[in-house]
């Protein structure tokens, strides 16, 4: 099998995930895009493991770990999103800018 196929798939999937992170307004949608990026990484890991065939099976083992980590990360991420929703009644990224540098009027 041509190795370029899975690796290119991973690259494109990653880029789509990048677009999603930067373009989506809802925080949950951003989390979804992050999952896409993680999947791309996984495909890469598996493809290289199949290519290199090392004794430790590092690629596929690490893929399992990444999947578990992704699950933990989504859990925490959603917990944060829920807390933000409770406090601000919105999860739109555009509206969450309290850490901005205050403008001169606001400074006074």
């Amino acid at each position, binding site marked *: 099998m041509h190795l370029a196929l899975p690796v290119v798939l991973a690259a494109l999937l990653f880029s789509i995930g*990048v677009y999603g*992170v*930067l*373009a989506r307004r809802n925080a949950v949608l*951003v989390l979804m895009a992050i999952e896409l990026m993680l999947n791309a990484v996984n495909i890469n890991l598996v493809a290289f493991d199949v290519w290199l065939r090392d004794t430790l099976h590092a690629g596929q083992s690490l893929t399992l770990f990444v999947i578990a980590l992704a699950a933990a990360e989504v859990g925490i991420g959603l917990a944060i999103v829920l807390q933000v929703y409770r406090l601000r009644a919105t999860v739109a*990224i*555009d509206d*969450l*800018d*309290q*850490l*901005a*540098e205050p403008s*001169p009027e606001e400074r006074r």
Partner: protein
Amino acid sequence: MTTLGWLVLGLPFAAAVVGFLLPQTATRSAQVLTVSATGVATVLSIIVATGAPVAGKPGVTLAPFGTLTVHAGLRLDGLATIVAVAVCVVALLVQFYSIAYLAGDDAYPRYAAQVSLFTAAMLDVVLAADLIQLLVGWEVMGICSYLLIGHYRDLPEARPAAVKAFLVTRVGDVGFLLGVLVLGVGIGSFDIGTVIAHAGSMPSGTLVTACLLLLLGVAGKSAQFPLHTWLPDAMAGPTPISALIHAATMVAAGIYVVARLYPVFRLHTVALAVLGVVAAITMLLGALAALGQDDLKRVLAWSTVSQIAYMSGALAVGAPVAATFHLLTHAAFKALLFLAAGCVLNATGEVLMSSMGGLRRRLPITFWTMTCGLAALVGLPPTSGFFSKDAVLGGAWEAARGHGGGPAWVGWLVGVAGLLTVGLTAAYATRLWLRTFFGPAHEPAAAHETGHAHGPGHVHGPWVVREPCWIMTVPLIVLAVPTVLLGFAGLRSSWLPARLDAPGVAVHPTLGIALVSLALSAGGIAWVVLAWRRAPGTDPVPALPVLTRAFYLDDVQDAVIVRPYRLLARIVSAADAGLVDGAVEGSGAGAGMLSRRLSRLQTGNVQFYATGVLAAAVLLAVAAVLL
């Protein structure tokens, strides 16, 4: 001998240092200190003058500048020691006189210390063996002159006069400094003996430039045209200062330097020709201006300008002995005239001659001594002025006939100008004599307090015009002696001329010149006396504004130099505030503005930050691959 020489220099300097440290109430200590220091210095200078001349090998090395070294040493030849004696004597008499003149002044110790410092500086100029050492004394004299002219803090014209004196002489001093440097660097040494010996080895262009630059300094310090404008205004200072600095010593320093370096000036006649032209102009200018003044001290100031021009004229025509002789006699009679004027001011409380008159009965000692001084100024025999002025005119005549050092036309110019000035000098001296001492007496304005400005030694109460105390009249008598008798010292070539390193040149009058100049003097005197007879008590000379304002040269100087400089100063200060300060403040403002612009990057939006990070990462990756 060298040790005594150093003491002559060092004692007034030490007295100055101690005097500056004294509290302002210690008047008596200051008087004792300065008079005694100057007195001892006078005695020592006489001893040094009568001793053998010391050629002045380079003394202590002060500052090695690579190939050039600055030494500090003493050159005790005849010229230096005689002039040093004159300086010390006049300084001593002035210090003594000041005890009474400035009695009641609340800054006496400072004044006495400054006078002492000035004396030390003048002695340094006279006795120096090294040009840089001379320059140090030259500059210190300038500072002391500034401080002393501005002594009367409450007098409104004192401070501007001091600044004017300082600035005008400063213009000359720049030239003087450059001249000294050109000479020293060109010859490779600043030692005066070496400079004189090796001046011939310098290229003529450089040498002439150096001489002309030195003459600029001479013109400034000795108040010759065009840098003469400061001297009449400097009369705002106390009268003893006018006697010391602006008659006898500092203004003669320029003449002394030219006499000192005379072999250098002699090598190319261009500089001396320029000096001759300047001298001729200044002679006439000073005499004419003196005719138009009402202020007693101003007449004497313009007279000084004119008489110094005689000395520089003598130098220009190749008669340095005559110049030095006239320097000595002028020191005596001009100091006498100023101190006598101080007595008159003190006695009457008036400065303007139009407020004086008929003082000869009330101030007998002043009258008789001032008469001797004026006679010497005019050049009447047998006073010393007759001999020295005749020597100057004789030197000019010799040069005009081709026997002198320089071109003949210089001799003609100086000679003709000198003779005309003789007549004018006689006129203004007579005018001064008549207006002050003869005619109806004007009541001194006891109603208005002229206060301290002109003679604080008076007694409070109804104003009585009477002779000042003995402290002020004894110096007059002392100075009257050389005024009358000094001329005879030149008759034998083994007396004064030998002392001035010119053995074999006797200074005796030439018959022809003497007759012509006496005739001109008589003419001037007669004119004024006749005018006085017609209208006693008023000004015999019509008061022409062009004379009173001294040909408006002050106004010319103001328009041509002072105003443009003030404008330039305003521009520079505006540029400093706008550009330099503006740049500094602008950088602060710029930093603030930049930070405000940059702080807009902190939008608080997570996606914005993430975009930045990812875009930069992509760019870096591409750059890493491409580069």
